């Protein structure tokens, strides 16, 4: 079905109207999805800080650019000032600006990022009451494996799901992942994190979810024609609901899984390199 020119023009006008008439305002439309994690705010804080400081420096650039273009146009300013800009005072101002940019933006980001990575995102201490999930990425789906009551992966009581990861609220979820075929990336927009799933090696990620509900998991590394279809569901349950689901599922697993099926045993010993 082809669209006529007038229909398209109408569409253009209604799009602009659409943005304001929708329940989502224009400002809201490009905000990140709801943050359900404990650490997502760290990324947002740093993003906003960087934005404010960048806006400051960029404002200076714009003022300089437009201001000088206005004040010093040929019509308004007939005689240029003949300087090579290599006197001491010029060098000092330039150095001052360069150091100013570095201290206000770069150094702060470096320090804050390093701290956040060390204390939060790279803190892979999975001891204690945590949930461990193994993720196998493939063209074009996500497989999830839970250890079951025996606490060992790749055993008969493992719960294996396709395209649906269920986690309890309020607990740390540790993920180890790999890929069957090409490089994929496990992306949780609502937790602001992602990591590559690479064939032949294991990568790790952890997050937590503080709100129950259905969220999305996406693949964030080009993996072929149907990369865009590689969506999975993140179901965040209350801790009781999660526990009962795991119990139920693992008894079903023991009862119904074919122990001879090699394809089911894609798991690995937790912590393998």
């Amino acid at each position, binding site marked *: 079905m082809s669209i006529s020119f007038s229909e398209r023009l109408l569409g253009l006008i209604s799009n602009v109207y*659409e943005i304001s008439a*929708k329940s989502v305002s224009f400002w*809201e*439309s*490009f*905000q*990140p*999805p709801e943050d359900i994690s404990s650490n997502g705010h760290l*990324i947002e804080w740093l*993003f906003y800080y*960087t934005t404010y400081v960048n806006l400051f420096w960029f404002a200076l*650039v*714009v003022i300089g*650019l437009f201001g*000088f*273009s206005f004040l*010093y*146009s040929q019509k308004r*300013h*007939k*005689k*240029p*000032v*003949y*300087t*090579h*800009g*290599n006197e001491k005072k*010029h060098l000092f101002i*330039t150095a001052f600006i*360069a*150091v100013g*940019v*570095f201290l206000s933006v770069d150094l702060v*980001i470096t320090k*804050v*990022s*390093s701290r*956040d*990575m060390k204390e939060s995102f*790279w803190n892979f201490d999975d001891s204690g009451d945590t949930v461990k999930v193994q993720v196998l990425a493939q063209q074009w789906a996500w497989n999830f494996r839970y250890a079951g009551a025996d606490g060992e992966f790749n055993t008969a009581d493992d719960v294996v799901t396709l395209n649906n990861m269920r986690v309890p609220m309020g607990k740390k979820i540790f993920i180890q992942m790999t890929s069957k*075929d*090409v*490089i994929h*990336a496990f992306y949780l927009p*609502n937790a602001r*994190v*992602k990591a*590559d799933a690479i*064939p*032949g*090696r294991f990568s790790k990620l952890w997050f937590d979810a503080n709100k129950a509900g259905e969220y999305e998991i996406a693949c*964030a*590394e*080009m993996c*072929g*024609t149907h*990369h*865009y279809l590689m*969506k999975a569901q993140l179901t965040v349950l209350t801790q009781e609901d999660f526990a009962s689901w795991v119990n139920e599922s693992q008894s079903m697993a023991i009862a119904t899984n074919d122990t001879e099926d090699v394809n089911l045993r894609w798991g690995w010993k937790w912590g393998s390199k």
Partner: protein
Amino acid sequence: MAFLEQHIHDEPKTFVSKYLISYDHKVIGKQFLFYGIFFLLVGGLMALLIRWTLAYPGVPFPVIGNLLFPHTGGVVPPDTYAMLFTMHGTIMIFFAITPILIGAFGNFCIPLMIGARDMIFPTLNMLSFWFSMASGALLLISLCLPLGAAAGGWTSYPTLSTTLGSPGAGQTLWLLSLFLFGASSTMGAVNYITTVITLRAPGMDYFKMPLTIWGIWLTSILNAIFVPVLGAGLILLTFDRVFGTTFFLAGAAATSGKGDPVLFQHVFWIFGHPEVYILILPAWGIVSDLLSFFSRKPAFGYKMTALSLTAITILSTVVYGHHMYTTQMSPLLTQSFMTLTMLISMPSAVFFANWLGTLWKGSIRFTSPMLFSLGVVFVFGLGGLTGLYLASTSIDLYLHDTYFVVGHFHYTMAASVLLGGFAGTYFWFPKMFGRMMDEKLAKIHFWATMIPLNGIFTGMMMMGWAGMHRRLYNPFIYEFTQNLIPLNKFVTYCAITMGLVQFIFLYNFFKTIFGKNIPQASSNPWEVGTLEWTIPSPAPHYNFKEIPHVKCGPHELGNPNLTDGKDFQYQTEELVKA
């Protein structure tokens, strides 16, 4: 060391020796320019196909949709979409920007601006162009293969780019095409570096060279060192595809032995990061000169600018890991890359401040080259600052592989380099073709490009902040991207507008070259002092009848003590004390 004057050859007479197999750097430069413009159009069309699919999933592409995709009634299919974004990136980087900024301006400007009669190795120069042609031909052929062209992204990570993920000859031809391109680039680099070192006219010290030459020379140094690294990676991947080696195979692809896919990423980005600086350095150099020329005063802090460009060139070699944060290298390595990447801000801020210093208290002429240069100041300021977000290891956890990255690199590569390329084209056109392009059309071209351009790439950064990731045939199967449909449509309208506007440039460009009754340009229409403007327009085949002797710098404008009615001095004049 005595100066060795190149002798004047006879003028070529036949059509073939004048326009096809030419050893004249000016002709080769123009050949690269036409070649680059052609591929810019091909890459641009691909961009529009991508944008259309994102704005109107499932809707046939207007006018030529049915011609291109008869099987789907004009709708771009998913596998073609993957091929489109792969080839768009590949073509724009290697077949549009590189030929125009480095092949065309490098070839045309270097001998003229340093006072030489030609490059030091004219035969090598000619070969460099024809290797590029062969490379381009291979790439175009790959588009016609039954299983299609390469479709694993311009970064072609294994194992998607191995025979498992990309069956067929498309990916292999892509590898061979880029290998030939690399050979062409390396030949060019050898020529440019040696020419600048050995053929500068008497009196032209390094710190009397125009900043355009600094930019192109530094780019050539990066080219010579890092293009071969890509070459090695391409060879190894080709061997994996064709000869059964297992360098990058793992998982299902490793049917016998295995290798490491991440090794490819290291090799690729060791080349890849310097490559982005290779693409921008010529534009930075050109803009640095043009801002001075059209402010009618010397480039502010010329020496510091040249040294900052050099510092950035050096730093660019040690920061590549920031493209690979999500592959989870060791924390130490990851932190080091972040810190080193951050350091690049300082020399960048230095030359940026110098740009503003050049404008300060000048007497600005808003010619088309100047407008485009001012445009570069704006877009690179914005684009460069957005790089800071991506340099942060923590923010990158969220922003990696989103449209924020796409917005960032388009601002710094596409916007800055494109605007810089237009500035250079309008500026050197009279020296190339002996006529002036229409200024009125040029100014319309500027504003009509600048406004939608900012719409497109700011829109993309907003989408990226919203979390929309890249390389998706239909992003809206995800709930969290639903709110971005209007923004995507807006970006597409801007892209279509910007695309159509480029016909103004094309019309102006070709009409002025081939039209009748176009007035001859003077030898120095812009009234500036670099050596190419001391000879007639267009430049005669031997460039300089007598090799010039350089006595002052390239930006001697606005000296109040000049007595001969000009407000500038040619580089061949004795410097008048201020």
